């Protein structure tokens, strides 16, 4: 973006504590065209109509610790959390970085030495801050945000941004939507600050300042932002201090400063932030992409060894998984369940589906088959569920006039059920291979591939000339040696009907053959496919049976 005042004479940043707003100025101010008296109105580059809802979690450090600890013993937590004092183990663990309500009332504040805090509140519970949990908390909030809109950004460590323009109609307008988001978060025990404006940064700044505004018009932004203290921008401490010495304490003061002077004296980022907050500069951010896999665990109390009960114990995990898939519009092809025992190594169950699934009923049905087959060395004390890679869910569009499509959908389920009981290798399809050696002219084909080909219409059978001679319907896995030198015997003396058909060579993969094939008939009337080995030591072999 071109700077409006780039080619002008660099003016001085006015050191006066309060630049007079009524004074006529020639220099362009940072506020751009949104302020009266400016000759160069800045063009708004924010995509028209975007509305950003910012969720700010002022107490995220404490909340991240409660989320895991308090879930187990909620009642105890209610009484306990007020006394909590959190320290950052990364910085020596001597400084308080967050504290509960009771602790605050007792005079404990973030930044205080731990010893001072303990002196003020002797029965404080000291906890260590956990950045991983903080991240998890933020992702949990973002996950919940995905229920409202698909466009979600994270603003670590404590902010989540939602673009809600497209969701307004569904949720009945701006205020009901904000209320819904707030309700959902409060139900999880969080204390969010929510603000909604046309730009990301403005929303964040309002939320951080604790001002829960709902602002839909971009023109009103500059006026409302002006009152915010600069602390909400989270600019570097040094810059904020030097701004403060100039008497610049609010965003509005900043906007009144001359643009190029501000750019020269402070970090480029700061000017960019101001532009972004006002919607004058684009603010691209990486979209929040939810985790690639699902993992969850459940501890069993008491330990279980009964299959039916284990199935029931796994069901909440499956429900969670399906909710997870639903949010992402995804499906899974495989799952892994690990059953932990007290001493024995964990039992692993892999569930593979013939096609990507997202329905809990199907997963549960397959799990039942697998659990029935599993053997338990010891009772199970804990179950862990981990999904395989996710794939995009494809909804099958119904067809009003087409005949019954039940069959097409029934095959994958049949294959899954069979595989669950008989093993993965037990079910396969067939395909042709352009090869002259009989045993190499076919291959097992994965059912999933066949289904995929059928859906996409690709994968026609390879076209190649059919063999001149007849081929038997049954092929023996290994040629079976027959008695007899000149006259082969199989269930009696064989009578040669057709042949010979010579099939030879295969030096390229080390399975060279030199054979003369015949169609022969046994005295009982069965037709068989035999060959005479032309390499030493020779002899007759049975290779197939005509069914």
């Amino acid at each position, binding site marked *: 973006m071109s700077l409006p005042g780039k080619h002008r004479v660099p003016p001085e940043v006015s050191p006066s504590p309060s630049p007079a707003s009524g004074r006529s100025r020639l220099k362009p101010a940072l506020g751009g065209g949104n302020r009266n008296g400016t000759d160069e109105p800045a063009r708004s580059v924010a995509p028209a109509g975007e509305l950003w809802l910012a969720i700010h979690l002022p107490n995220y450090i404490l909340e991240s610790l409660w989320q895991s600890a308090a879930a187990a013993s909620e009642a105890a937590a209610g009484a306990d959390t007020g006394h909590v004092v959190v320290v950052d183990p990364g910085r020596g663990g001597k400084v308080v970085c967050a504290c509960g309500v009771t602790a605050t009332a007792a005079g404990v504040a973030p930044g205080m030495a731990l010893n001072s805090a303990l002196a003020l509140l002797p029965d404080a519970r000291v906890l260590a801050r956990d950045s991983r949990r903080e991240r998890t908390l933020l992702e949990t909030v973002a996950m919940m945000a995905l229920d409202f809109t698909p466009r979600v950004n994270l603003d670590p460590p404590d902010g989540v941004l939602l673009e809600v323009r497209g969701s307004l109609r569904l949720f009945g307008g701006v205020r009901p939507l904000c209320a819904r988001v707030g309700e959902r978060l409060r139900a999880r025990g969080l204390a969010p600050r929510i603000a909604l404006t046309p730009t990301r940064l403005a929303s964040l700044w309002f939320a951080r300042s604790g001002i829960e505004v709902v602002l839909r018009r971009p023109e009103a932004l500059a006026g409302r932002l002006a009152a915010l203290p600069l602390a909400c921008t989270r600019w570097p401490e040094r810059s904020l201090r030097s701004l403060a010495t100039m008497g610049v304490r609010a965003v509005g003061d900043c906007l009144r400063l001359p643009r190029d002077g501000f750019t020269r004296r402070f970090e480029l980022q700061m000017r960019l932030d101001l532009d972004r907050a006002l919607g004058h500069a684009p603010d691209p951010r990486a979209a929040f992409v939810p985790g690639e896999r699902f993992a969850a665990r459940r501890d069993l109390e008491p330990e279980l060894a009964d299959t039916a009960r284990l199935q029931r114990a796994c069901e909440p995990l499956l429900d969670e998984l399906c909710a997870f898939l639903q949010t992402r519009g995804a499906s899974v092809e495989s799952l892994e369940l690990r059953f932990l025992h007290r001493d024995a190594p964990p039992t692993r169950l892999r569930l593979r589906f013939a096609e990507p699934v997202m329905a809990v009923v199907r997963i549960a049905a397959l799990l039942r088959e697998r659990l029935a087959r599993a053997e338990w060395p010891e009772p199970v004390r804990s179950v862990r569920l981990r999904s395989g890679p996710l794939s995009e869910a494809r909804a099958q569009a119904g067809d009003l006039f087409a005949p*019954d*499509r*039940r*069959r*097409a959908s*029934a*095959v994958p*389920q*049949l*294959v899954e*059920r*069979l595989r669950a*009981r*008989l*093993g993965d*290798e*037990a*079910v*396969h*399809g*067939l*395909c*042709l291979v352009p090869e002259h050696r*009989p045993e190499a*002219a*076919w*291959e*097992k*084909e994965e*059912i999933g591939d*066949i289904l995929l*080909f*059928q859906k996409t219409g690709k*994968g026609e*059978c390879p076209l190649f000339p*059919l*063999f001149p001679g*007849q*081929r*038997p*319907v*049954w*092929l*023996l*896995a290994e040629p079976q040696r027959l008695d007899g030198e000149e006259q082969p015997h199989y*269930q009696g003396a064989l*009578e040669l009907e057709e042949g010979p058909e010579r099939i030879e060579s295969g030096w390229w993969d080390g399975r060279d053959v030199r054979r003369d094939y015949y169609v022969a*008939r*046994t*005295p*009982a*009337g*069965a*037709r*068989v496919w035999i060959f005479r080995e032309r390499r030493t030591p020779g002899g007759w072999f049975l290779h*197939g*049976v*005509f*069914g």
Partner: protein
Amino acid sequence: MNGAVSRQCEGLGPLSPIPHPLSPSSLDDLLRHPGLWRAREQGGAALQPGLPTGFASLDRCLPGAGWPLQGLVEILTDRNGIGELSLLMPVLARLCGGEHEDGWLAWISPPHQPYAPALAACGIDLRRVLVIRGQAAEWAMEQALRSGACSAVLGWAACRDRLSLRRLQLAAEQSRCLAVLFRRLRDGSEPSPAVLRIALDGDRDGLEVRILKSRGGHAMSVRLGWASFATRAIAQ
């Protein structure tokens, strides 16, 4: 078997009302009586037309003029290779196309590997073939029948107990697909709920097809010469 067979006995009560023993209306009343069981109407509905076997002489012997689509077909043979699959190939090829396009052919614990080039040469769409191996052949067959995914299910299973046979027969009746169970000749002496039981025996001249049991039809025997198989192969 086309007459009415009365199962009336002391426990069933009188066949009333019968105004006149010989009036036609009384005969209709008589035939509607629930105590009467007519062999021809077994299974309730009228006989469903079957799938043409591809062998005219065999079609003539079967009540639905072809393989029955509702119920289990048992083929009893002790030897592989005497033509037990050649007998089915025409109907299997037909089940792969046309109105049966969506259906799969399930081969459940076959004695050897079904050879893809031969199946393709017979006109079977290989993308519809499902080969299933494993111990629980009866279970797998029942699953395949009940799934509704298949247009033909071929199973090779001993089926030692009558209960599993009965389950297969029920599953086959409810599915609209060709259900063929291959068993040994000696099993022919045991009773079976299958709708059609065929014993196969071959020699150097042709295939002897003995119909042991055929619901709605008669037990009879028909001989298919190897020539008829050969002409079929040429026609394709």
